[in-house]
């Protein structure tokens, strides 16, 4: 790897390369996922209602809170810096570590999506080969890590181009085809539209889906990790939040509806994936030759999404290490300012988990528990962010914030409160076990909470053992 850095805190990022567009694209890459569209299209018109719930209880609050925090404290570490300001190092480090560690469990699923979509572009049956799947997953994972290795400039260019080609263009293509379908007079498989049809069914059976919907828009804080490389953070962050939120909502809602009006619900069966839906869609539109190119584009979109989640929290951990909160071995940066040690450790752990994921496919309780853990860890992150934006209005009222959540104190309580309400509720329903598990509900809940605790607690251990020698000479305090 590259030469070890020895700079001060902030040396991870000494080039201001990010403008408004790049910031917005980082968020779009992290949040906009074509992978979600068929799963949501199954709900027909009521997917609109589910998206509205996700927007009210999460997307809007996190966008506003992120904009205020990013402009008030445009520091390295993103979530870490924001929560640290409000609740100290323990809070900040815990929030960041939860965001990082939940990725380790999530990476194999997105890598598997990338590999199976790529297989679809070549020969769908390749997805049955564990060797093929693992090879593609590792190429995607280590390739993305390599891009991160070359620093912000390279990863930004890759992200900007990739998110347009791999996420936005495919989404727009699906929307255009949906419009064409409507204009052609072809049959619409959804029942006639009504306001009532948009209202989702809320019942005990659908409660767990609430947690899914809330976290559909997770990742809106991702641009905050790149504050040190941003040219004009105080003016660009709020605009980037707004632009990215609009792109994400428009693409997500319209593309989901386009799929829902064209593909019968029984063809969107939940065992099939995005490409099966796309294949049906394009075949119905008489352009089946577009399926393979579309698979390649969506593969790229998956890689870009992976890159956004892989690079952001790793950069945050790099800042934590620079500040002397982790042993110096974590504080290795290269000449491009990339946190190579964190990236390599992350890639090694992710590779090991992916290995089991591919070669030990199962539907047992362990997978449910792991999936629940990712939800719980992310909820901890967001509760801390929403709590931080409220707390900082009291503890640091005079800190200049070029963007403030409108409405004064009532406004920040309302926005932060909605976010806390949504994520806390998601945390609670995320603990609900499937009804058919043979183990008791308490054992399931205990397992999820224990796993969540294990993946959240290392920061407290690191801070307890913190050694002055961990802080490099000339480093930040």
């Amino acid at each position: 790897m590259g030469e070890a850095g020895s700079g001060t805190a902030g040396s991870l990022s000494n080039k201001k390369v990010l403008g408004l567009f790049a910031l917005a694209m980082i968020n779009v890459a992290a949040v906009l996922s074509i992978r979600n569209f068929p799963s949501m299209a199954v709900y027909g018109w009521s997917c609109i209602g589910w998206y509205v719930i996700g927007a009210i209880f999460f997307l809007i609050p996190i966008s506003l809170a992120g904009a205020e925090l990013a402009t008030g404290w445009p520091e390295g570490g993103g979530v870490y810096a924001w929560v640290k300001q409000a609740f100290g190092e323990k809070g900040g480090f815990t929030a960041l570590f939860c965001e990082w560690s939940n990725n380790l469990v999530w990476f194999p699923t997105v890598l598997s999506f990338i590999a199976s979509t790529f297989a679809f572009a070549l020969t769908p049956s390749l997805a049955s080969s564990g060797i093929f799947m693992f090879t593609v997953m590792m190429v995607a994972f280590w390739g993305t890590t390599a891009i991160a290795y070359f620093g912000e400039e390279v990863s930004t260019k890759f992200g900007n181009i990739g998110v347009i080609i791999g996420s936005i263009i495919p989404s727009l293509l699906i929307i255009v085809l949906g419009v064409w379908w409507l204009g052609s007079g072809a049959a619409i498989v959804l029942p006639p539209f009504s306001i009532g049809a948009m209202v989702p069914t809320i019942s005990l059976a659908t409660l767990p889906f609430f947690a899914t919907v809330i976290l559909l828009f997770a990742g809106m804080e991702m641009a905050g990790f790149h504050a040190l490389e941003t040219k004009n953070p105080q003016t660009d962050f709020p605009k980037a939040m707004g632009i990215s939120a609009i792109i994400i909502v428009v693409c997500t809602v319209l593309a989901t509806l386009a799929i829902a009006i064209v593909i019968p619900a029984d063809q969107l069966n939940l065992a099939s994936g995005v490409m099966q839906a796309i294949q049906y869609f394009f075949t119905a539109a008489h352009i089946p030759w577009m399926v393979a190119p579309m698979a390649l584009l969506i593969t790229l979109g998956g890689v870009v999404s992976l890159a956004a989640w892989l690079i952001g929290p790793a950069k945050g951990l790099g800042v934590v290490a620079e500040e002397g909160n982790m042993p110096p071995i974590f504080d290795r940066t290269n000449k491009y300012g990339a946190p190579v040690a964190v990236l390599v450790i992350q890639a090694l752990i992710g590779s090991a988990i992916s290995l089991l994921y591919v070669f030990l496919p199962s539907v047992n309780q362990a997978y449910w528990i792991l999936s629940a853990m990712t939800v719980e860890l992310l909820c901890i992150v967001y509760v801390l962010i929403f709590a931080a934006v409220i707390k900082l209005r009291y503890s640091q009222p005079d800190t200049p914030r070029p963007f403030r959540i409108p409405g004064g104190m009532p406004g920040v309580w309302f926005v932060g409160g909605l976010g806390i309400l949504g994520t806390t509720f998601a945390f609670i329903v995320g603990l609900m076990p499937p009804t058919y598990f043979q183990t008791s509900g308490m054992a399931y809940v205990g397992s999820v909470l224990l796993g969540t605790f294990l993946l959240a607690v290392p920061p407290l251990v690191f801070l307890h053992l913190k050694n002055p020698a961990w802080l490099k000479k000339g480093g930040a305090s």
Partner: protein
Amino acid sequence: MTSVTKPDIALVIFLFVIALAPIGLLALTGTHVPWYPVSGEPVRELLDAEGISIVNTTDTLWNLPGATGGRTYVIIDRDNDQTVISTQNFETAEARDAAIRSWHAHGAGRGKPAGSLFVLGQQLVMISPSDRPVLETLGATLNGDR
């Protein structure tokens, strides 16, 4: 460059152990799902045995490599809620396992995949939506068979 001490290395190992805890969980509980031929319609037999009436049955073929067809049963439970149970046979264990991976990879966002998936030898059984009361009855049996 700052020298690396033994406690530092211990902390790195600690981080690895913690982060690898999920792997330990999988390794301890995740045995490979057995593959065996399935004859007849075990899900229908199970529904009949439980006295659950089926309101509609159709043939179905999932658009997945190696899928060879199955049945989709629609049932209405005591609360008048509709549940769809779809079965699918696969040519090989590899094709079935690929379908399981695909299901795991298609959860919306960070959430769990939609529906509930069970494995009966060469057959996958998908019950949707999740957490319907009928799952308590069917799920325990299907889990036990797995």
